């Protein structure tokens, strides 16, 4: 925690925060960078008439360069949006709509974020064909299946860089190479990847890339879309009227939020390597302790192609929501934050072939910039104690201990 900042992270007795894939706290250094642009430097960056506007414009352009830098892009290729959801909507609908007369097919993956899947479903309603590729048991895409799925009129392939639930990293460079060879655009939702793993849009042949502010210790309400200029990616805007962001995204740019996203990218770029090593050690500590304390704990998703801050674990025979109620001292997620309001088990885990009963027992543990060893130890303690307590009152655990094969039971349809 940097010293001397005007904003201290609050210490209100909140639970230990282990949900860094849902959202991250805004880094105090980011808040510091943003504050002047909320108050004394509040100009509209599009006001070309006075210095308030010029100052804001300068700040926005500096931020744009910082965002570009972390993905190896040119600043001119970065447009600001209201967040990754908008970026993903714009990338898919924008490209599809622009090319609708000639190309009518889209390839994506079943484990994508809801906003990619929903955009694809919307395009299907409009008459586009969409291929939803399955994933392997480790959550990774099969490249041969990708090759086979691309058709002559495939306009875009959209594959997320890092999955929000299981943290697995897709083989971006290989996907980019295939897409370039086949002459289709490659879009990647990198909301969970930026600042966690090195990204280079040129080396990876990425044509469009979505960025989120609040997943990388930046502010909420801001994101970016990288749009390649050479060869140029053409797309139709989603929000029009004003012509900002090269006509691709209208609306007054929120200068402080742009500055915050830029600063978050700059910090992430500087500190990525050190942070990754630290989180990897914390994650190993967590995993080793929890598996030493509890039998029948299963890791979902690939063990190595994975960002260091994510663990997705199934605690067999203990229902996730019931467990969440017990671990009151922890903020973790059972399934994705967007779907946990519903009772269906995670569609991502189901896509991995995780059985429904195991999917119901999963927790996502997200470690991040402010996670400490003490927090990890306390979390392990709380989870282990509660899992043990709930297993003691689980009829399934009892049956398994008695040697009953749960599959042999005729469960009532319910």
């Amino acid at each position, binding site marked *: 925690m940097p010293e001397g900042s005007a*904003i*201290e*992270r*609050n210490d209100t007795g*909140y*639970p230990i*925060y282990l*949900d860094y894939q*849902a*959202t991250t*706290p*805004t880094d105090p250094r980011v*808040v510091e960078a943003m504050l002047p642009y*909320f108050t*004394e430097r*509040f*100009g*509209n960056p*599009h*006001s*070309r*008439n*006075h*210095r*308030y506007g010029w100052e804001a414009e300068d700040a926005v352009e500096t931020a744009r360069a910082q965002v570009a830098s972390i993905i190896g892009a040119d600043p001119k290729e970065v447009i600001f949006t*209201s*967040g990754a*959801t*908008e970026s*993903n*909507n714009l990338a898919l609908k924008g490209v599809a709509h622009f090319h609708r007369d000639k190309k009518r097919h889209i390839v994506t993956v079943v484990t994508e974020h*809801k*906003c990619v*899947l*929903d955009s694809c479903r919307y395009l299907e309603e409009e008459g586009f064909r969409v291929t939803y590729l399955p994933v392997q048991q480790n959550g990774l895409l099969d490249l041969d299946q990708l090759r086979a799925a691309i058709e002559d009129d495939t306009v875009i392939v959209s594959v997320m860089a890092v999955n929000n639930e299981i943290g697995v990293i897709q083989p971006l460079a290989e996907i980019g190479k295939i897409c370039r060879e086949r002459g289709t655009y490659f879009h990647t939702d990198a909301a969970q990847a930026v600042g966690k793993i090195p990204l280079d849009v040129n080396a990876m042949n990425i044509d469009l890339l979505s960025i*989120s502010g*609040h997943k990388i210790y930046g*502010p*909420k*309400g801001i994101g970016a879309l990288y749009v390649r200029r050479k060869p140029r990616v053409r797309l139709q805007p*989603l929000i*029009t*009227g*004003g012509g*900002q*962001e090269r006509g691709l995204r*209208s609306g*007054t740019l*929120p*200068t*402080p*939020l742009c500055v915050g996203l830029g600063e978050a990218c700059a910090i992430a770029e500087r500190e990525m390597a050190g942070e990754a090593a630290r989180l990897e050690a914390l994650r190993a500590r967590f995993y080793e302790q929890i598996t030493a304390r509890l039998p029948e704990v299963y890791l979902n998703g690939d063990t190595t192609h994975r960002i260091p801050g994510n663990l997705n674990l199934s605690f067999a025979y203990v229902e996730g929501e019931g467990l*969440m109620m017990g671990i009151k001292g*922890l*903020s*973790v*997620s059972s399934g994705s*934050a967007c779907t*946990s*309001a519903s009772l269906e088990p995670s569609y991502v885990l189901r896509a991995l072939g995780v059985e429904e009963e195991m999917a119901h027992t999963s927790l996502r543990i997200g470690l991040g910039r402010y996670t400490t060893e003490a927090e990890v130890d306390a979390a392990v303690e709380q989870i282990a104690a509660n899992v043990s307590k709930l297993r003691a009152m689980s009829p399934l655990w009892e049956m398994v201990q008695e040697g009953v094969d749960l599959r042999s039971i005729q469960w009532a349809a319910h």
Partner: protein
Amino acid sequence: MMAYLDHNATSPLRPAARDAMIAALAECGNPSSPHAAGRAARARVEAARRTLALAFDCALDSVIFTSGGTEANNLAVRGTGAATVLVSAVEHDSVREAERRAEVIPVDGNGIVDLEWLEARLARGGVGLVSVMLANNETGVIQPIADVVRLAHAEGALVHTDATQAAGRIPLSFESLDVELMTVSAHKLGGPPGVGALLVQEGFPLRPLLRGGRQEDGRRAGTENVPAIAGFAAAVEAALATADGTRALRDGLEARLLASAPGARILGALVDRLPNTTCIAMPGVAAETQVMALDLAGIAVSAGAACSSGKVRTSPVLAAMGVDAELARSAIRISLGWNSTADDVGRCAEAWWALWARTRGRKTVQAA
């Protein structure tokens, strides 16, 4: 010390909004997460929704938070599914360009929509949506929304009003206006940029612009911008709580400007306007020249709307009002706000008069 008189472009953040945002920024939580941190974030969003519902006199479910006025306008114009849309000739680009096939309702010399034209067009049938702004960003002219609503509803058409410039500056009741959709924006009323809201009548079937997530009742996907939403609500509260002194300041300014520069003209002066906006023309002096001169004197004003291009163009708003192109090119916009002072206004009047005197002097010399 700069005198900032460009509040219609953006307004500085109110201290109450700043405090609310800093409190929210110090916390971490995704409002969709069911744990305590997520619930705290959700509570901030819902408290803000209550504030807006009270302030603008609408139901809680009517408030959809967006990334700003532009997104809200796009959502309103495209979200109804109306095949035929009518928009006024003085709308902001985010309304006009949201539906390129929209038919344009002309305005009169004061910038007021032509109600006879509207009635005749509605009578021909097929109109799904009418979008007329509450108050104009360049002139501050307030539209007769009640008449627009009466005519539109009589023919079964919906009404959207862009209240971006009006919200926080004049009292607004969504219920009394009886429109189906209304846009409000935070940063014009002293809230943060990057957040706005579309108010919709309860149960109104709106097609979302951004998909993928159940936020805002499935009508606007994307993680809620919690600190900005909290700042928005605090700014709205502050705007309603504090008596607005801008009308007296503005009227005083206009009197001084008109007295100091014979031939100066205030556009839209004959009709109801926002209490903070002056659109004034100094004949014979380009708007750019006036803006630069005022900037050098430490006063920030604008030559027309701040949008993307930066290029000098004749204002479409003034053109639609039938203002002579020469006169339009000499019009600047002075817009006051919550922190404007008598000193700001006085310095503005002096600097403007000084420029007028200088140009007169030069012309005199040239003529000699």
